[in-house]
């Protein structure tokens, strides 16, 4: 039976195979070009034309990836063949353009003099791959390389570098991977000159028309992270700069490496050692701070458990020292598991109510959550436990959080939201999440003497009261803050003025608690 090409443009590359007399389609063929550009027609296992189209897309993606791998491993790029639109006036690519993925680390680390290392990522490059295909993505990266080389060459020809005391500009551009390029300038630029160059490159790139087909073009933005250093560390500093630029949504960040040989790396390494030591030696130490009913400030209504670590000298380290690093080193979950165990041990031995802080990262961790729920169930401590959701501004999947909340609520656990009002961004959360308490953000409470902040806090308390949610004012650091917090109608109080966080033994002693 004949193979019939589908005329609908949407199904370009898909053909139907007729075998039965009633015209029922019994198979599909797809047409594409292989890695060498040779046309291929192939039977695919598909029940519908949509399924066949999907198979064709998968095949094309595989070919694109193969091509990408082939191109990236090639020592000298073929992108020189790319025909760039005339209106962009990009000249033939410079020899400085390299596609090698492995050489750049070696070349940069072996370079003995001060040099500039700049990494750049194309903003939302995934979208380009998805919408225009991998082939277009690769083409765009090559265009970008050529555009940068051309811009630098033009600056050189215009005498910009000579005017700034650079006799001969020497640089290389590497395609590191996917959408990442590395611009390695083997000259020692003054920082203002580097700023000016990168700003010009950013402008040039944002104005450039990157062609995605014969008829259309797109505009792109890039993020630069740069540093000036010698030796192997420079790539790491550039990496840090790029990470920060992306995090802070800046198009360019320069990481200073002037003080790189001093004790920053040493301190960071020491923190890593502390993390490992605390995990191995099970030294995670919960501290507890009382939360008081406004009507009774002598005995806490419940206690907030706070994670602390100990260094080798036995000094207590606060979360500002280790929290971010523990997440970066992917050691946080192990610390948190220890923390939960130790807090629950205290709850088992003492008839007290506790709050346990969980972040979005914790709630996203099925093992940690399952362990928590099963222990709460087994120990029957649900009615004495409040889970405090911290960093709630990071919550993206409300349904997932609610699912977790309801599984806890079935066990009698209460839910609190921490830092309510910080950045004024989490109002939505108290409506969408089934919470029992909100903790007013400490930075707002600390400014309660300022009438404007007091009005904001008072209204936040009112909103919570109307929604049936109790409020806790943190950061009660003196009598005047305490009085003002009471005057705006908060339900509970917490802060150094009432009780400083301490280990459980000290808490028992201070409040004369009875240990079971």
């Amino acid at each position: 039976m004949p193979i019939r090409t589908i005329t609908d443009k949407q199904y370009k590359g898909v053909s139907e195979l007729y075998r039965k007399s009633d015209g029922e389609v019994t198979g599909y063929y797809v047409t594409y070009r292989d890695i060498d550009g040779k046309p291929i027609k192939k039977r695919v296992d598909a029940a519908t034309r949509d399924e066949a189209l999907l198979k064709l897309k998968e095949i094309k993606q595989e070919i694109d990836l193969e091509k990408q791998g082939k191109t990236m491993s090639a020592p000298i790029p073929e992108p020189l063949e790319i025909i760039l639109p005339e209106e962009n006036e990009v000249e033939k690519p410079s020899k400085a353009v390299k596609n090698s993925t492995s050489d750049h680390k070696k070349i940069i680390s072996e370079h003995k003099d001060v040099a500039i290392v700049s990494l750049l990522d194309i903003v939302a490059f995934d979208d380009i791959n998805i919408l225009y295909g991998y082939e277009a993505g690769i083409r765009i990266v090559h265009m970008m390389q050529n555009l940068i080389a051309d811009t630098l060459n033009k600056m050189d020809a215009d005498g910009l570098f000579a005017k700034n005391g650079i006799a001969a500009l020497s640089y290389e551009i590497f395609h590191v991977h996917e959408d990442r390029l590395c611009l390695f300038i083997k000259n020692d630029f003054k920082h203002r000159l580097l700023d000016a160059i990168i700003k010009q490159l950013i402008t040039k790139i944002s104005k450039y028309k990157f062609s995605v087909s014969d008829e259309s073009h797109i505009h792109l933005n890039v993020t630069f992270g740069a540093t000036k250093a010698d030796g192997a560390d420079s790539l790491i500093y550039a990496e840090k700069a790029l990470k920060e630029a992306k995090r802070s949504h800046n198009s360019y960040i320069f990481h200073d490496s002037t003080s790189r040989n001093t004790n920053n790396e040493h301190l960071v390494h020491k923190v890593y050692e502390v993390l490992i030591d605390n995990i191995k030696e099970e030294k995670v130490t919960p501290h507890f701070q009382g939360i008081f009913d406004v009507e009774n400030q002598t005995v806490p209504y419940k206690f907030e458990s706070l994670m602390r670590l100990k260094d080798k000298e036995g000094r207590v380290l606060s979360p500002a020292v280790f929290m971010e690093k523990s997440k970066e080193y992917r050691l946080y979950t192990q610390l948190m598991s220890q923390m939960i165990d130790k807090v629950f041990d205290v709850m088992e031995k003492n008839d007290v109510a506790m709050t346990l802080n969980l972040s979005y990262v914790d709630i996203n961790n099925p093992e940690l959550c399952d362990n928590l729920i099963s222990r709460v169930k087994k120990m029957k401590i649900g009615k004495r436990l409040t889970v405090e959701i911290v960093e709630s501004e990071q919550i993206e999947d409300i349904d997932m959080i609610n699912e977790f909340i309801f599984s806890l609520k079935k066990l009698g656990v209460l839910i609190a939201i921490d830092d309510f009002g910080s950045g004024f961004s989490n109002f939505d959360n108290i409506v969408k999440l089934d919470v029992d308490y909100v903790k007013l953000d400490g930075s707002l409470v600390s400014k309660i003497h300022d009438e404007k902040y007091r009005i904001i806090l008072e209204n936040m308390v009112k909103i919570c009261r109307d929604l049936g949610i109790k409020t806790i004012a943190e950061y009660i650091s003196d009598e005047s803050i305490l009085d003002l917090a009471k005057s705006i109608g908060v339900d509970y109080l917490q802060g150094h003025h009432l009780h400083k966080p301490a280990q459980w033994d000290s808490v028992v002693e201070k409040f004369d608690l009875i240990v079971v």
Partner: protein
Amino acid sequence: MHNEDIMNKESTMDLNELRNSMHLLRKQLFSDDITECKNRLWLLKEKLNNNETFNDFGYMVSIRISDYDKIVEEYDANVGNRLLKQVSDYIIRFMKGNHLNFEIVRYVEDNFLILMYDLSEDEVAEHIVNMENGMSNYKFKHRSRMFQLTCQSAVMQYIEHESFSSVLDELDQKLFENAM
């Protein structure tokens, strides 16, 4: 209202205004010109006796920013000043966040002196370790420039009538040893 009452009220208002002006002037006189810290004059006039001995007791912490000179050389004094402000803001925020009883002075260039009260030596050491380590995680920024600064520190207890210069000398020696 009698004339006398009016005159009394006016003089009280004048006195209050004068007090406020004095307070403001004093604040300006004892404030560092770059940071939110107090200046050397404050140290001399408020913390020391006429013979340059301490008029109270506590702990003095000397803090220096690592490679501050190199940074000023590489960039310029303006960038250096911005960083001094950011570092001192960080220290003040840390101290206030931990509800500590303290005073901070920018003594010279990048050398800050922190006077801490109502704490034991171990507590001071613990707070300083936390402050230093926290600072290494902190990103100081000036325009599109990012700095990961660290500091060197040394702690000394001081008592009433002890010579300021001898405490400072010992702190400098400790800083030097710590840097080694």
